[in-house]
């Protein structure tokens, strides 16, 4: 489904702030793969997501999604088939527009060549209502309210719905539950699992929770210094404990995993 070949990206080239964020990164995801991604601070996780989603163009290498070369496709065009959630729940929704209007915008992705002057129809509203009911947050009765009034968790759940209402070919989750309180985070995670299972969506998910990294999905990727240093799946993964994972990281990267948030979430 997704194939990255020797992707390289250097930020601020030729200056003192030059930073090679990813180098010779290659990855292949089969259709329906759900891979979790872990790694140190500055390992290039978010950069990899940015390269896939098209926030910037890679300096070298090619990106192929579902057989189509998207290396130089603009971000807004890629978003037709790639859904993306950020850690910040405020990033995915327009606060001064109503829930209904936000959903209508997300629904634009479904429609190739709809008339730009068409309006939200009764049928669309029914569909939005049905979809909102799935969230089980009572949002279906607040469709005329501006999204700015919702809590962070509600906004993130809404963003998840917006990213998946029209099933994308690839879903990128960048620590999308990290900024939420534990109960809400669980709820959003449950929803994520449900939606991914229903649509068999190919998915990449960054997490800082090692337990989660092993439990969710069918593959675990570890990144360090702009490369993927570990890729486990199948029986090997099923038998793996968190300490095994850390040990494997040490041998793979030649150093300890250094992420200020990972330890916290292991204790909890």
């Amino acid at each position, binding site marked *: 489904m997704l194939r990255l070949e020797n992707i390289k990206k250097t930020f601020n080239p030729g200056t003192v702030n030059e930073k090679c964020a990813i180098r010779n990164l290659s990855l292949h995801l089969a259709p329906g793969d759900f891979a979790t991604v872990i790694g140190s601070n500055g390992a290039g996780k978010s950069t990899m997501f940015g390269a896939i989603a098209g926030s910037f163009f890679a300096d070298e290498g090619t990106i192929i999604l579902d057989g189509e070369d998207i290396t130089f496709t603009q971000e*807004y065009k890629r978003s037709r088939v790639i859904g993306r959630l950020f850690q910040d729940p405020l990033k995915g929704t327009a606060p001064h527009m109503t829930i209904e209007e936000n959903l*209508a915008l997300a629904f*634009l992705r479904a429609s190739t060549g*709809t008339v730009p002057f068409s309006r939200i129809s009764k049928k669309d509203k029914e569909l939005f209502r049905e979809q909102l009911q799935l969230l089980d947050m009572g949002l279906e009765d607040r469709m005329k309210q501006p999204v700015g009034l919702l809590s962070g968790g509600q906004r993130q759940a809404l963003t998840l719905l917006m990213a998946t209402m029209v099933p994308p070919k690839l879903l990128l989750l960048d620590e999308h539950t990290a900024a939420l309180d534990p109960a809400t985070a669980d709820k959003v995670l449950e929803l994520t699992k449900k939606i991914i299972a229903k649509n068999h969506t190919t998915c990449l998910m960054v997490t800082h929770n090692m337990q989660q990294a092993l439990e969710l999905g069918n593959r675990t990727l570890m990144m360090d210094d702009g490369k993927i240093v570990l890729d486990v799946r199948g029986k090997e993964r099923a038998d793996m404990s968190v300490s095994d994972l850390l040990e494997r990281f040490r041998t793979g990267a030649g150093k300890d995993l250094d992420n200020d948030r990972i330890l916290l979430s292991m204790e909890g």
Partner: protein
Amino acid sequence: MLYVIQTALELGFMYALVAMALFLSYRILDIADLTTDSGFVLGAAVSVVVAAAGHPFLAVFAAIFAGACAGFVTAFLQTRLGVPSILAGIVTNTGLYTVNLMVMGWSSNVSLLKQATLFTMLRDTGIGGSWYKLILAAGVTVLAGVLLVWFLGTRLGLSIRATGDNTDMVRASSVNPVFTVTVGLCVSNALTALSGAVVGQYQKSADINSGTGIVVIGLACLIIGETVIGRRNIAVNAAAAVAGSIIYRFIYAVILKTSVVPIECLKLVTAVVVALAIASPALKEWGALKKRKMGAQQKGGR
């Protein structure tokens, strides 16, 4: 007295189009579009020149088109060439000065003498009696307002609104923000030019300096309207722009009649009002902090 009220209403409705344009660019797209001043003159110049050639109807559409082109240039500068939005407006504004002179045949003003305007045409039909000017001014503005509100409810309109609200989210919804900003600025400048076009035919003349400060006056109208009517939804906001513009023209008329403030000072007063209104959230915050500090000092006994 009646004449004063009538004139204030007429001007209020005609200039309300500028407030509506600023509502679109400043409030919705979050861009301070300084193309407005010259865009207004452009509309007036095109309108008067084409009307002088005997086509008052065509004149209005030509002015709208010219305004949209001006908006396109500003949008192109800021979305494609990376010129900061304020500067893009100033650059277009400066360039338009020459374009406006060119439109008026390298003269600083043009007048309509005996030629028909939309206003004289309506007068000749006898509709509305002595209120014909107001009927036409209100008609054009209300029609434009209804179209604007309708447009902002369409998918394209929603995309434009979201662009000003959260650009990231727009991109993630497969909408190109470059496109939505461009359409938004074209529409807002078309509205500004429409205002110029109607005013030009109303006054039967266009002057190269008639647009000076119109962006600040438009903002003042918008803010007055929002204070009086509120900002609940798009339709209310559009109505607020019209109401604000009418209120502004009434204040203008009162000042003109009573000379409470010398009329020469009006632009300064307008500028101060706009600055204060836009600064009010910051001023309120500063006041609250002062109060909080005072309270803390009294409690601490220091």
